[in-house]
């Protein structure tokens, strides 16, 4: 297993996550997509650090996971509020940001 394989996997997961974020209508689906993208990034960091024989990458990834958890919590809270305001769970029907 080379760095090449790891980065390819990371790229694959990131793309799947991006596709999910952009194509899902349901807000939870979007959050899952974001989570996938985060994980892809973490994977890339850990992989690169590992190939260089460093532990720094894994520590950064740990921090990343913690931040992600907080992020998702905030995201879910926002989603709940948005759902309550616009009575829908579909992202394309929520246009509260329209100026």
């Amino acid at each position, binding site marked *: 297993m080379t*760095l090449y394989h790891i*980065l390819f996997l990371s790229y694959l997961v990131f793309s799947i996550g991006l596709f999910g974020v*952009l194509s899902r209508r349901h807000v939870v689906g*979007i959050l899952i997509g974001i989570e996938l993208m985060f994980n892809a990034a973490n994977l890339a960091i850990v992989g690169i650090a590992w190939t260089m024989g460093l532990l720094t990458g894994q520590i950064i990834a740990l921090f990343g996971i913690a931040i992600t958890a907080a992020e998702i919590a905030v995201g879910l809270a926002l989603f709940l509020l948005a759902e309550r305001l616009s009575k829908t769970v579909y992202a*394309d029907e*929520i246009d509260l940001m*329209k100026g």
Partner: protein
Amino acid sequence: MLSQPQILLILVLLPPFISFALNALIPPLRRNRNVSSGLSIIAVLISTLSSVVLLKINPRAEFIFEWIPLNIFSKIEFGFFTDPVVLIMFFIVSLVSLVVQVYSLGYMSEESPPSLGRYYTFHSLFTFSMLGFVASLNLLQIYIFWELVGLCSYLLIGFWYTRPEASRAAVKAFWVTRFGDVGFAIGMVLLWGATGTFFLPELFVKAPDISKQLITVCMFLILLGAIGKSAQFPLHVWLPDAMEGPTPVSALIHAATMVVAGIYLVLRLFPLFELTPDVLVSVLWIGTITSLLGASLALVQNDIKRILAYSTVSQIGYMFASLGAGGKGIAFFHLFTHAFFKALLFLAAGCIIHAVHANNIWEMGKLSKRMPHIAILFLIGSLSLSGVFPFAGHFSKDEILMWMHIKGFDIHFFILLITAFLTAFYMFRAFFVVFFGNRESSQESLSKTPWIMSLPMWILAILTMFAGFGASTFFNFLGYRLEEHHTLLEYLPLIVSISGIVLAWSFYQVGYFSPARVYSILSPFALALERKFWIDDTYVWIYRNILDGLSSLCGWFDRYIVDGFVNLIAYSAKLTSQRLRTIQTGRTQDYLYGIIIAIILFFILSLLTPYIGRTLTEKESYKEIQGPTIIRGWGEYDN
């Protein structure tokens, strides 16, 4: 420190302004009937007393301050000063204002308190601006006060602004006088351009050095302002219409403030006018024509106030003619006497109108029995205006006519003599019709004139009766020498006046001649008079056809070219933003697309840009990544 004359000068000028400021800025004062009128009258009383004291000590006082400190060309100094002419004007203006304001207490008693407050506020400003105008030392300052006088007369003529005629008359007065003022402004600035100063004493010194043509143009333009203000031909059309204002206002405008300002301006700038004989000749002709025009137009008027208005036009014409002939002291003397008897006539007419509630002389009739008091006052005024001995008007009018004769202006002498005859005729036409007319007006008793209205009139009447005898004192005070003349012609004006009165008597009192028959014999001429010599019609035609056409052309240009250009810009901005705003859907994912597209674009850009896109050199790689291995071909590393 201020010297005593300076304090007195300030005491003349400031009280009306303080009264105006208090009334204007503090509405509770203005809304109180007694406070507003009391303030105004006390202020003008202080002015009058100070001006009397000033007349007595006759000082030369100055009060100069810097207005615009311009270091580039010349600083502009404003100032007030006194000389005999100013002192007499102070006396006339403040006294007539005082008399008129006291009279107004009775005349305007039916007004609501706020309206009365407004009336007195304007009156205070009017008095202040006229006093300031009279004492000004600077041409620019004169212009400012000049416009203030115009503004006040506009406000007071249109005082009953709910009546359309009144507001139209006010606008007309403002419009016509403004037309002259444009000339004044241009002339003034041209004069400044040539001499570099607005300060009158400096101007008089520097003016003779200017080229003849330029100063003629300047003075002619300034004269245009004076013609507009003093209602001289061809800008006299506003004055008769100004009769829509309250009668005391007419008295003030005609006797002491508005129309007199034009005469005073010519008098004050006389050293400049003397340099331009051409302009002086036109002053002479304008004055002569106006006096005849005013008198002949007064012949056919039926409104008592309009008769008086045309008589003012005519009398101011006398003053202009006298100024044009070089008799400035005499013109000023006529101004002095005219102020009293014209104010008296207007106030008396106001009493009649107040009692009868009509302006038309044919609706009055037989008032001599019911208002004997007013009849005597009106008679004094009429005799004075007609120039009958021993009333004030006789002396001044006589002086003017004699001056014309002595200086060899025989045509003008003759025209003014005819005018004197017409003056006597139309005044006594009004007098006989109003007080002895045949019409049996209703027998109900007329409201008695309150003392607050009759007292001011008696003051004026006494002045009218005795001011004429002060002629020599007056001229001594001014420092002019009165030329002695003893010819038989001296009695001609008096004879002419009396024959005018007799003719009016035989027409309208005893009925030797029928006015209607004379009217029909002279019908073409009478028609011309009825149509006011078509002067108003000409102005209306010019206005309707030429000015309206021009302004609609300008309007078209503004609406379609200027506005069109602006609208085009606005429209294109609107169109662009309408297109652009569709991007902003408010949906999160659309924004994400935007972000991602941007990132991809930046990535492509980074590949294209030399620095970012190049691979690291070996040295740089060592410096930046301090790890055990170096990335050199990612695939090569094998765990």
